[in-house]
């Protein structure tokens, strides 16, 4: 049999040549496909890491903690947190941008979140990193309480036969108290006389001054914002016995009928029109929190008590009409309690993102 070198023909060289050519072509294609896959992965990673950064940002903005007196704890300048989310983690840092001298004006922060995409199979090094940021205001769970009952709409000046208590001394637990407020705050010449109520608080207990819209302005509540979607309520109808202190926003006028027994409500009750409370039972109506009314409040029930604060006549801030109020029921007891005020405003505390202030070009190194 002839040796390999003695064999003639071209089948083997041709076969080797063809196989080499095909191998080269497939190799080149494989490299290009790999490159394409990397680009596709990179596009996907950019989407994923943006989601991680946004998720971290939203989580941080939505987190708020409270002290024992239910005061929202404001994050320190430079406060940072690593938030683990599916697919990676986000490093969030909050910086104070503006600290207004006015204690009621919210501080402005810029909160940046750097998302890191982790693929376990690729090790612990992030596959992609992206930073986004959001300007946000820090909102406290407090309000400018002028009095236990602030009636910007004014009160009927005569014909009062009811009795009760208006206490401007803070009833919050010891250590959680705020300075006393007036028992009753009304515009000039709009206080009832005589007023056979037990009064306490900041002197004078009944403070008459300014015009109606001035009093509404002094509450520092932006009523236009409240009535135009500035507050996202938990409910749009009255809910009793919900001790989670929800926010209730009732459009137009509302009629509350209390009893039998004590009908108890908690939280922030906002009524854009008039509020009427009626019922005949003893200790018929109890509210723990804040009642905020655009028009007048008709206290028609036999026995009504509020622990927190009451504000009526906020429509005067917008120059709209609001009837003067009075108490037709037998007994009304309004006690200023800053802790119940804070609890009622709890869901409004924390970071409120400034609209249309989202940043996607933060320095990445």
């Amino acid at each position, binding site marked *: 049999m002839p040796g390999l070198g003695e064999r003639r023909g071209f089948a083997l060289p041709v076969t080797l040549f063809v196989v080499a050519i095909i191998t080269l072509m*497939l190799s080149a*294609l494989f490299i290009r496909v790999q490159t394409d896959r990397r680009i596709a992965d990179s596009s996907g990673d950019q989407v994923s890491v943006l989601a991680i950064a946004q998720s971290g940002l939203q989580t941080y903005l939505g987190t708020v903690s409270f002290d024992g007196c239910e005061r929202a704890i404001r994050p320190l300048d430079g406060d940072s947190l690593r938030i683990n989310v599916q697919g990676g983690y986000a490093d969030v840092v909050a910086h104070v941008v503006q600290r207004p*001298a006015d204690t009621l004006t919210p501080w*402005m922060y*810029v909160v940046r979140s750097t998302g890191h995409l982790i693929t376990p199979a690729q090790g612990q090094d992030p596959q992609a990193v992206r930073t986004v940021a959001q300007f946000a205001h820090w909102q406290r769970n407090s309000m400018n309480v002028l009095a236990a009952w602030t009636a910007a709409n004014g009160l009927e000046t005569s014909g009062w036969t009811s009795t009760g208590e208006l206490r401007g001394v803070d009833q919050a637990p010891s250590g959680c108290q705020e300075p006393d407020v007036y028992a009753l705050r009304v515009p000039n010449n709009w206080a009832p006389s005589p007023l056979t109520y037990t009064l306490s608080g900041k002197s004078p207990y009944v403070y008459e001054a300014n015009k109606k819209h001035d009093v509404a302005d002094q509450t520092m509540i932006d009523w236009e914002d409240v009535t135009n979607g500035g507050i996202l309520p938990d409910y749009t109808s009255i809910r009793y016995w919900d001790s989670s202190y929800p926010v209730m926003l009732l459009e137009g006028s509302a009629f509350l009928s209390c009893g039998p027994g004590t009908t108890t409500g908690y939280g922030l009750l906002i009524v854009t029109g008039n509020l009427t409370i009626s019922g005949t039972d003893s200790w018929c109506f109890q509210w723990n929190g804040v009642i905020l009314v655009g028009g007048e409040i008709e206290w028609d029930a036999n026995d009504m008590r509020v622990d927190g604060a009451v504000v009526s006549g906020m429509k005067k801030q917008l120059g709209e009409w609001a009837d003067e109020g009075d108490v037709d029921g037998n007994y009304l007891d309004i006690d200023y309690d800053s802790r119940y005020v804070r609890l009622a405003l709890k869901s409004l505390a924390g970071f409120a993102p400034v609209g*249309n202030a989202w*940043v996607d*070009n*933060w320095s990445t190194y």
Partner: protein
Amino acid sequence: MNNRGFTLVELLVGTVVVSILGIALVRMMLSDTRFVSRQEAMVSARQTARGTLNAMDVELRMISDGGLSTARPDSVRAHIPYAFGVACQSTGADRIIAALVPPDSLLYATAVVGGMAHQQTDGSYDAVDGVSVGNSSNFSACAADSIFVVPGGRLVQISGITGPLPDPGRILYLYQDVTYRFSNSTEIPGRLALWRKSGTAAYEEVAAPFDTSSGFRCLVGTGLQPTTCPPAGGVDSVRGLELRLVGASEHAPRGSDNPSTFELIARLPFLNKVN
């Protein structure tokens, strides 16, 4: 050893067998060549589309109210923010100090200043074209209103502001006036390319080639419905853009008369627009 040679029949049979094998081999090579060519063309088309989307995504998402100047099926022009910050006090009738949050260094260094937009109480922005921006060390103008420069941020003076100056504490941003346009390519003559222009600088070719079906659609309404640009309500009603990036291969793959294409459709809502 037998040296009698091949018979005619043997030669014919051999020729037929070799021919069959040769034809099969050529067909296999042609098929494989076409396969590789098609795949390469598709990869090329995909890379064109994806690379372009990655570049445009960051810029277009930050558009705010009044930020979209023109929108046509083949081009858009917009104020693209490149640095955000907060206004401090004025230092003259047409100038203010501003504290900027840390911007991307490369972007900041290469940006062509188009103007400044400052936020109004309703959340929308008022744009002022033609401002000048320079570094400042006037920290007292910000400290007076308890405004801080965050670590890594910049303090700048913005001058040449026409109209009312923004109040201290107002959020503002510096923008580039950027135009994206699909037009004829110079890199690949006879084909379509995406061009980008910032301010008065010349157009730069971003990527090519694209299929002629590439372009922009406007997203309007709360459901971000795509519609032809400009929409009936004008550019102010636009809440986002739909990018139709149909990347194409530079050459038609073997066995085909037309280049391969890859269609990538992405909807980018404007995240800084009042809803």
